[in-house]
């Protein structure tokens, strides 16, 4: 995953979360797609890239949400660093382990985010415990299915190209 791919994924995640999800779903979906990108980067590229990705994603969210700039950047950078540093000790090949890592990352993000607001003692945004747990589970499900799609896409693309190839399905006889 190149840096340009990460930037593209972040931009797409933010646009999809703000502009598309609202139009395609009847009820609001408690998902943080930018965090999904950060955790994916942490697991695939390690802590250093995850720190930069988390910082960029969080600061962008802070700037665009009109509040104090920093809490989301700090929370996502910490999550990226912790998941990235522990990724060398984690085996996340199985679906359930990816799901568990993401749920943990999501809850960790909430703790960091609200922790910062508690420290600075200004009006903290609101979220109930049910919302946070629901968001963690939804994030985990989206992450697992998203990663599944990302991993399955190249093979599917190859099969599609073979299927549509002009020489596909013909019997060739070598003379």
């Amino acid at each position, binding site marked *: 995953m190149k840096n340009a791919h990460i930037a593209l994924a972040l931009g797409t995640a933010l646009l999809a979360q703000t502009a598309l999800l609202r139009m395609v779903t009847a009820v609001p979906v408690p998902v943080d797609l930018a965090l999904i990108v950060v955790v994916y980067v942490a697991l695939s590229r390690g802590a*250093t890239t995850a720190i930069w990705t988390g*910082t960029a994603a969080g600061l962008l969210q802070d700037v665009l949400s009109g509040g104090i700039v920093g809490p989301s950047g700090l929370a996502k*950078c910490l999550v990226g660093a912790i998941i990235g540093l522990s990724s060398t000790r984690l085996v996340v090949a199985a679906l359930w382990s990816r799901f568990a890592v993401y749920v943990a990352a999501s809850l960790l993000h909430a703790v960091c985010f609200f922790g910062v607001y508690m420290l600075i003692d200004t009006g903290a*945004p609101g979220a109930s415990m049910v919302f946070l747990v629901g968001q963690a589970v939804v994030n985990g499900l989206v992450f697992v299915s998203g990663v599944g799609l990302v991993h399955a896409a190249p093979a599917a693309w190859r099969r599609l190209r073979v299927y549509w190839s002009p020489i596909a399905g013909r019997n060739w006889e070598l003379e």
Partner: protein
Amino acid sequence: MVANVDRRPRTSYLLLAVVVGHLILISAQVQAGPRNSVLEQVAFGAFAEVQHALTVAWQGVFGTWSEYVALRDLHARNDALAAEVADLKLQLQSQRALARRARSLQALLDMRSDAGLATVSARVIASGVAPYIRTLTFDRGRADGVAADAAVIAPDGVVGRVLGDPARAASQVQLLNDRNAAAGARVERTRAAGIVRGTDDESVLTMEYVSTTEDVRVGDRIVTSGIDGIYPPGYVIGDVSAVSLGSDLHLQISVDPAVDFARLEEVLVVVQERGAPALNSPW
């Protein structure tokens, strides 16, 4: 292996530097108060343009589908809409009669006539980018006369206020159910005043600072009082869903918001015209 050993301290230093940088950034804003910097305005404006383009494109695709492909139950919908229009026309006539009566009463009491609110209609183009902060982005901005703190209302009731300086063609609105949002409010029946705020639960508002001596019942309508200088008085906020005695001398009142914030599409943004009376003037 050697590379890993070399990289770990570098990552730690980077993490430390980034965390310290964030803390300095946050503490600077806490001391000086959050500002709507040029960078934020430019970033928001640029992002809103992309969101707007995406929304228009999506609605174009979806509109093509609904207009040309999914026409199966159009006739039934047409009949239903015709019936609804007839019903609304009746209601409109009734409202006009009421308005005429109200105007004549107002003239009798020698009160000044209500100048009416100058508004622009706006459409939702995106939801909030941070999951814990309840905001929406609308397709009207500075170019349409929208200013910071402008009230946003929908046919059902009060939506929220414009957050910070808007971009040229877009503005961000803090919804009334956001944890940090508040509005001056009154119980319509008894005129008891208080402040309505957002809660952790996005489907419930709370009304604070209403004395325990006041008569507030479940089902009472809560309207804006205009005391905050943002929301015009008399607009519906919601209905009381629960009342109990609070821990101090105030009632604990839960309010069911009149607006379904998740399904908002079109709203009106109040534009203060030059020379117009202040929004919080009593009437």
